């Protein structure tokens, strides 16, 4: 059987033109997807059943036992942390929010270690953005700043920018200029028309300088700014102002370096400044296929996109305090539920040391690094492969992922709903 227009559950591009060939309950071929997506569709080695850590060994348990254990451990906690959520569908995320509310825990998603700083910046100055198709059809200038799509979002260039055709561009490849700005000369830099190499930690200064140049104050700028000559900065500013439609795509090169969200704020303010001259937009290269969805769901249900603390019943938001890395490193939680992410692979070691000390429950289809810190892991279906549900693309477009094969695994939503029901039952008693 061939499933057409399947939706790739890997990165924030959420490509929805994938053809998946399924034979005897297995994916045997994948067309149109990049290497990352193909590998995910072809993934093997699922965990077969729920497991419980019993001293120095692992024990198989039933789903009912696992659900009961998970619910009870989280209910007992004085400050449970519910973390992850980017690797699952929106319907499951909704149950997660209700759960956090019910047990008065902290709910955070992977954006806190990804584009959380971008969100903090947007909360200060807003966000002039657009859907990917607007860029594809109109943009004659695309800037990748601190992002490396060839490695992280491989089809971004072919679907939306460098190699994409566009309604208003006669010859898109020729008429569309690409600027790459980075501290490393990445693969993406090699396909750029202009590469601007910044000294590490210098993004903010370069952004400020560009803003001043766009305002006509080039003469006040020093001869070099963070390794970039004033001449090049003026050239880049002119390219921007002379574009009919410019689009900036930024990545973790801005969110993870010194100043964090202030870098993004500065980039957004540059785009707002350019909007006085021509059309300009800016967008984050969101990582997980549904990290944006977890921000959306959290926002409409709690008012905040990530890092929400329900300890006091009402929602409290303060990234840096209510975000997962801070809470774990400061040992401020006493149980954790992990869904759709792998913090043990992606968090600093100090966080893992605390995970080792508290009860941890994980919902994940595969054994992963976090498995080692679990008291219970419950295997679930993979959204986009054997479960369906809503995901939000990096530009906010919601797409329903498809189920391409049937397995006996429960979806995240189903397992969470069972845990939630158990919690309600216990609380009512």
């Amino acid at each position, binding site marked *: 059987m061939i499933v057409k227009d399947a939706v790739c559950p*890997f*990165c924030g591009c959420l490509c929805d033109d994938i053809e998946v060939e399924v034979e005897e309950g297995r994916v045997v071929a994948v067309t149109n997807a990049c*290497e*990352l997506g193909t*590998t995910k569709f072809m*993934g093997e*080695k699922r965990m077969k059943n729920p497991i419980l850590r019993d001293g*120095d*060994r*692992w024990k198989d348990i039933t789903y009912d036992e696992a659900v009961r254990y998970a619910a009870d451990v989280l209910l007992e906690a004085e400050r449970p942390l519910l973390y992850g959520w980017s690797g699952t569908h929106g319907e499951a995320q909704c149950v997660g929010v209700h759960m956090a509310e019910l047990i008065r825990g902290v709910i955070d998603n992977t954006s*806190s*270690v990804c584009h*959380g*700083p971008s969100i*903090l910046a947007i909360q200060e100055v807003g966000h002039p953005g657009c859907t990917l198709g607007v860029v594809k059809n109109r943009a004659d200038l695309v800037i990748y700043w601190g992002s490396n799509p*060839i*490695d*992280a979002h*491989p089809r971004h260039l072919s679907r939306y920018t460098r190699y994409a055709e566009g309604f208003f561009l006669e010859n898109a490849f020729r008429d569309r200029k690409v600027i790459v700005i980075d*501290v*490393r000369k990445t693969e993406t830099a090699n396909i750029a028309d202009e590469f601007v190499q910044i000294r*590490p930690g210098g993004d903010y200064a370069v952004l400020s300088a560009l803003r001043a140049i766009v305002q006509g104050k080039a003469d006040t700028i020093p001869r070099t700014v963070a390794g970039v000559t004033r001449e090049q900065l003026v050239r880049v500013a002119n390219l921007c102002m002379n574009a009919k439609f410019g689009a900036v795509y930024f990545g*973790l*090169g801005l969110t*993870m*370096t*010194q100043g*964090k*969200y202030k870098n993004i704020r500065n980039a957004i303010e540059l785009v707002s400044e350019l909007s006085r001259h021509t059309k300009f937009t800016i967008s984050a290269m969101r*990582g997980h296929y549904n990290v944006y969805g977890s921000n959306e769901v959290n926002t409409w249900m709690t008012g905040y996109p*990530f*890092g929400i603390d329900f300890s006091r019943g009402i929602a409290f938001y303060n*990234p*840096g*305090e209510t*975000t*997962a*890395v*801070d809470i774990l*490193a400061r040992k401020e939680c006493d149980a954790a539920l992990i869904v759709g992410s*792998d913090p*043990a*692979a*992606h*968090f*600093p*070691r*100090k*966080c*893992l*040391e605390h995970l*080792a*000390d508290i009860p941890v429950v994980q919902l994940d289809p*595969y*054994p992963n*690094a976090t*498995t*080692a*810190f679990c008291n219970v*892991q419950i295997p679930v279906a993979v959204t986009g492969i054997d479960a369906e549900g809503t995901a939000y693309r990096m530009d906010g477009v919601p797409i329903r992922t498809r189920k391409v094969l049937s397995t006996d695994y429960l979806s995240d939503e189903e397992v969470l709903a069972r845990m939630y029901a158990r919690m309600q039952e216990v609380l009512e008693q």
Partner: protein
Amino acid sequence: MTFLMLTGRTVNQGVTVENKTSAEYAAETSTCFMHEFDMMELGLDDRDTVRVTGACGEVVMRAAASPEVEMGTVFVPYGPYANHIVAAGTRSTGMPDFKSHKVEIEPTDEEPKLVHELMEDLGGLAYDR
């Protein structure tokens, strides 16, 4: 020698990220990409092992030359090896300094650990080693 360590995504990291118990994932995320001159200075050949020491620990990786890396900096794909030495402080933003970490690098005879060994060092229990 002191370096600035950056971390980031690579295609190979992405391809292996859903199978974290695999040797391929361990190999990719324990690679320390360096400028060839820096490697010469340290007397390193490709795939030689190095001890990388950060503010809060040390980890053994394999060095590999990369034309994308500037002298004085190293690049390590996201994953458990880099995170073994990344400090957890976020400057109260929620985000650790994943892309700006000062590290010391020296040659070593030790081999990189496996992912599950790193996890066990921190108090975890490997599942299907």
